[in-house]
């Protein structure tokens, strides 16, 4: 409401499952206001959210357990509003207000 575009933010809930919460100070759930646009003034996507989480929220130094070669590391699923991100456009999906984004790390034990 009346704010400049550049300072607009998108409220999203980010959740972690399968052990990823360890990288975020054992928090299973973050309520965030993510900038609505990236530094090139393009709408915030999941790719942007992943960078944002690495830079702003991850206390843990082991960033390579979350991001590898500029992308989410293999073995992590992304669910947008409880559906696989493939159903939504993967990294290019543009965040919507109120979205729930869940990052799930595969488990292997038995």
């Amino acid at each position, binding site marked *: 409401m009346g704010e400049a575009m550049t300072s607009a933010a998108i409220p999203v809930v980010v959740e972690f499952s399968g052990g990823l919460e360890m990288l975020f100070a054992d928090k299973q759930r973050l309520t965030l206001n993510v900038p609505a646009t990236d530094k090139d003034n393009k709408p915030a996507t999941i790719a942007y959210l992943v960078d944002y989480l690495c830079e702003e929220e991850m206390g843990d130094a082991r960033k390579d357990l979350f991001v590898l070669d500029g992308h989410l590391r*293999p073995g992590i699923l992304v669910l947008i509003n409880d559906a696989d991100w*493939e159903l939504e456009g993967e990294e290019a999906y543009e965040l919507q207000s109120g979205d729930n984004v869940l990052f799930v*790390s*595969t488990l*292997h*034990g038995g």
Partner: protein
Amino acid sequence: AKPWAWPLSGEEYQRYSRQMIVPNFGIEAQLQLKAAKILIIGAGGLGCPAATYLAAAGPSHIGLVDGDVVEKSNLHRQFAHATSRVGQTKVSSAITFLKDLNPNVVYKAYETHMSTSNAEEIVREWDIVLDCTDHPTSRYLISDICILLGKRLVSASAFQKSGQMMVLNDPPGQGPCYRCIFPKPPPPESVVGCGEGGILGPVVGTMGVLQALETLKVITREAPPEKNMMLLFSGMAEMPFRSIRMRGKRKDCFACGEKPSLTLEGLQTSMDYVQFCGVRRPVSLL
């Protein structure tokens, strides 16, 4: 004397009566189950409860695959074994237990780990497969052989306080495979097994029992579900369970896509799952 005119024996009616009177289960489901041959790969924390509840329900055959022997550190979660059977193979220990629970089932023992050279021979004769193993190498191998042989796969995993479960290649040729969901293996540094990272018994137990239920559903249902779901379990959370909608098949999937690269011959002669999944560097990051 008149010949016995019923599809189940008197002993079977008695033994299975409590599940046969469940609405929409009944004699039809019991007969489907009685015809089913179920292969359980892994006789550990998932395999013990999965095999127990499936054996108790009355399938035709159960196959158990595991190359390990029972250790005392297994017993806090692997209840089909026993202190008196420490040192026996897990497969023979579990079958000792299962036979006394339900002697009507034919149990087949595979006292070995799955490998590229035995996978086809082991899996071919079974109707449905449960992945109860504990490493990405076996998870990719089992998924691949299930794709090649057209078997449905009920896959679960657990670690520390969390669990996951999904049904793959269901219906065969239509549902996604493990590679569709996870095309690249995780970096080996991120893979920690229950032996190193620990596991709570009832956490892996819950997943194994749910695997048995899912298997019963797949065997006895009238139609496949409309969506591919994955169940997530966080044992310590206020709301411990969550069902999420999985993606479908990946068109370019190596194993089950439109032009798959995977063949039975290739699996046996040139696939190296250990190399594919990588080996952890000596100093672990985790």
